[in-house]
């Protein structure tokens, strides 16, 4: 079913896409090119053709008619990718009426006119994974967007992005349901709710398989079992059709989650928040589960009490793929600085730091073949900065998505070539976990 939704979206997408693909080639010249995949090229050039990166290096062989962007004294990076955002959902982040709600689709709440998207774009963010919240052990299915502010809803969907589903654990589900004197109110309850959901899904799959077997045998009396959206979504998890993204803070819970994943035969794509990963990184690295973590948030709840700002680099050194994420309409605007902090906390190299907000989050979302680094053949999602993007001082000057200019700070007004309307959203929602709520 997730596939069906994506398919429908794609049909609309194709039209919008072709309308947006710029005809003219672009060449960025004399930039400090931080590729995220193969180091930094001083005085480098990047050639964009038909929305894709056609060349990158000390020099490129672009056609004579290409528009030249003189990037002397500027930095060029891949577009920033946020693997954990709740932006533009108009407060519909949690369907907190049951701890298992896998048939919720975040696209149904997506408001493509929300100002949060614009503010993120101005901070260089070109791709976001919009996730369900963490009230439920098994939440809803995410939507992946390209931050093409000004285009219609369907034109903002990331083409061919795999589906992701949000799970949670720990304090949030037990607080939400325990507060109503319902199951779960403990971590024991949390995980049992999850196991029971998968048992239900297995039974559902068995019923479907039995029906298909009957049909295959030519049994004309076979009655099709009733479709159940919730169980079908869980079956998609067990069939490996959805990337599992788990909100999880504590070391013991990473281990429990991996054990349950092994028990039911699915893979965990990433732990989100993951503030205690530094304690068990050597155990998680072989599972090839990544983390999407805060740079330095701590102390906002009990399970964030052992958070340390060295978590990202320590986990990375032990072989865990690490991304930084926002979980916040504020922080999404300066993820580049969050990456810069990793140089300070643990001594990440510039390459490693920039990867934490580009290629690694793209991998978590499953779009690393399309975006996240400056490599030939990839989408031309690019940010031009006036200063080293890992410093406090960088401002995004121009932001390109699929080779098209979506933000230009030199323009008057909002600086959005494709948008000149009215934006929504002054509720400042968007952080699900720990925003002060002032």
């Amino acid at each position, binding site marked *: 079913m997730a596939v069906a939704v994506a398919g429908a979206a794609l049909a609309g997408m194709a039209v919008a896409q072709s309308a947006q693909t710029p005809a003219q080639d672009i060449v960025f010249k004399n930039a400090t090119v931080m590729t995220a995949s193969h180091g930094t090229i001083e005085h480098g050039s990047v050639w964009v053709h038909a929305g894709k990166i056609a060349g990158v290096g000390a020099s490129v062989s672009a056609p004579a008619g290409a528009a030249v962007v003189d990037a002397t004294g500027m930095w060029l990076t891949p577009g920033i990718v946020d693997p954990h955002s709740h932006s533009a959902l108009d407060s519909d982040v949690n369907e907190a009426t049951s701890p298992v709600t896998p048939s919720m689709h975040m696209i149904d709440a997506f408001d493509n006119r929300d*100002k*949060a998207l*614009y*503010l993120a774009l*101005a*901070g260089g963010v070109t791709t976001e994974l919009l996730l369900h919240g963490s009230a439920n052990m098994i939440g809803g299915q995410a939507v992946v967007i390209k931050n093409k502010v000004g285009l219609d809803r369907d034109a903002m969907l990331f083409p061919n992005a795999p589906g992701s589903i949000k799970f949670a654990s720990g*304090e949030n589900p037990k607080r939400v349901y325990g507060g109503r004197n319902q199951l779960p109110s403990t971590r024991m309850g949390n995980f049992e709710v999850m196991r029971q959901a998968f048992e239900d899904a297995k039974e559902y799959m068995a019923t479907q398989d039995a029906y298909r077997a009957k049909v295959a045998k030519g049994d004309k009396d076979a009655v099709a079992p009733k479709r159940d959206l919730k169980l079908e979504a869980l079956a998609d998890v067990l069939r490996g059709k959805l990337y599992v993204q788990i909100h999880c803070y504590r070391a013991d819970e990473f281990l429990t989650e991996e054990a349950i994943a092994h028990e039911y035969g699915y893979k965990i794509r990433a732990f989100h928040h993951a503030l205690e990963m*530094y*304690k068990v990184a050597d155990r998680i690295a072989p599972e090839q589960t990544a983390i999407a973590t*805060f*740079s*330095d*948030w*701590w*102390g*906002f*709840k*009990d399970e964030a*009490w*052992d*958070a*340390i*700002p*060295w978590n990202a680099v*320590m986990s990375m050194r032990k072989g865990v793929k690490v991304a930084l994420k926002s979980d*916040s*309409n*504020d*922080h999404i*605007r*300066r993820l580049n*600085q969050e990456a*810069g*902090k990793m*140089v*300070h906390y643990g001594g990440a190299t510039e390459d490693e730091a920039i990867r934490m907000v580009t290629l690694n989050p793209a991998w978590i979302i499953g779009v690393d073949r399309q975006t996240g680094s400056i490599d030939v053949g990839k989408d031309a999602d690019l940010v031009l900065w006036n*200063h080293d993007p*890992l*410093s*406090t*001082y*960088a*401002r995004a000057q121009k932001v390109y998505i699929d080779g098209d200019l979506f933000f230009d700070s030199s323009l008057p*007004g*909002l*600086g959005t070539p494709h948008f000149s309307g*009215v*934006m*929504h*959203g*002054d509720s*400042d929602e968007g*952080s699900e*976990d*720990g*925003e*002060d709520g*002032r």
Partner: protein
Amino acid sequence: MKKLLFVALLLAGNSGWHSGWLSAQEPAKKVIAISGARLLTVSHGTIENGVLVMADGKIAAVGEKGKVSIPKGAQIVDAHGMTVYPGLIDPETNFGLIEIESDQNSRDLAEPSDEIMPNMHVADAFHAETELIPVARLNGITNAVVAPASDDTIAGQDIFIQLAGADRDAMMLGRDVALAMNFGAAQRRRGAHAAFPSTRMGLIAQLRQTFLDVQDYIARRDAAAAKKDNPADVKKEDAKKDDKAEKPFKRDLKLEALIPYLKGERPVVIGVYEGYDIETIMELAQEFHLKVVLNHVTHSQEILDKIAAWKVPVILGSIYDLPRANERFDAVYTLPAELAKRGVKIAISSADAGGPVSSHSSRNLPYAAGFAVAYGLPYDEALKAITLNVAQMFGFGDSLGSLDVGKTANVVMANGDPLDVRTEVKQVYIQGLAVPMVTRQTKLRDEYSK
């Protein structure tokens, strides 16, 4: 550095990373000379290849290398390649009023049972052993204002602290240094327990009545004191009046707490976000001649000239507050630069600077200042906004906030530009002593790095 590290580890001991470590150090009276560093003095420019001498807890000398004599027996810290600057001062924190945000038991942030709470003294709740203080100190924060949260129009009285000291009392450099006021939508009493004042009209009427009550209280108190001084008058007066007058004067702690502020003796920090709210509360403040420091002013873009004309200092924070829908992305980022350009004395606070809770992210204070630089604030002004300007706003300008002889030796040494996120603080000195660079977090780091 090696020697320093050794000292730090020695001090760390069992609970040495807590604030109380300084007590063990007081007899030491060590002289330390930091040599070869780039000195950002804040008050008189940058000295490349400078020397800073600290003795008896004070800055004893500061200047170019070769022009400053280093006392015999001083411990010399080779600081080539390092940048040295005065300890940073956060103008708004909740240090010691909160530990874990979601844990109600650890929260002593505000007393919302009434809107007028000037008799709430932060000093009475300040938990000096909080883990938040060493975490902030590690990134070079050496002093801070601790204020109550913003639930009430008059929330209580602030303390001014040093982030290390022998005990609570030594850390509180000043009690009741400022009155914490707030005005706007958040202070209205709405929702399930709606009551007066539920509108801005109500809030202002209540404040005006309170200030009038204080003026009346001062008059009655002074009259009572005068009678006491002159018993003959008391008899004469009493003969004229009814029984009521014979009652002894009863102190009213609430009204009494406001007296120094209505006399303009101490600053009133007014937390306010919207331009129209700023205009309203300033009208009231001027009516009663309050010594105002404006705080936040997040959506004041249209009245910047007016703010400048008032000649009041402004605390900006958070620079990360979101602009309104349809405002340009940098509408808030540029506020420090726009106000400084108009001659306003500004401070920058950490509020929300890098985390969900201001005090937990106080360590990101220098990055908020750096971000203001990215959006047009001159670098020197940015550094001043988290050092000397804050000290001056709260009455510590003579002892803190710059590298000047005679000032308290709260000094930070880092491996680069203090406002850059990539820079690591290598050593913090408080009262001229090397603070152990240890926190609960570094201990966890080290334990799991083995």
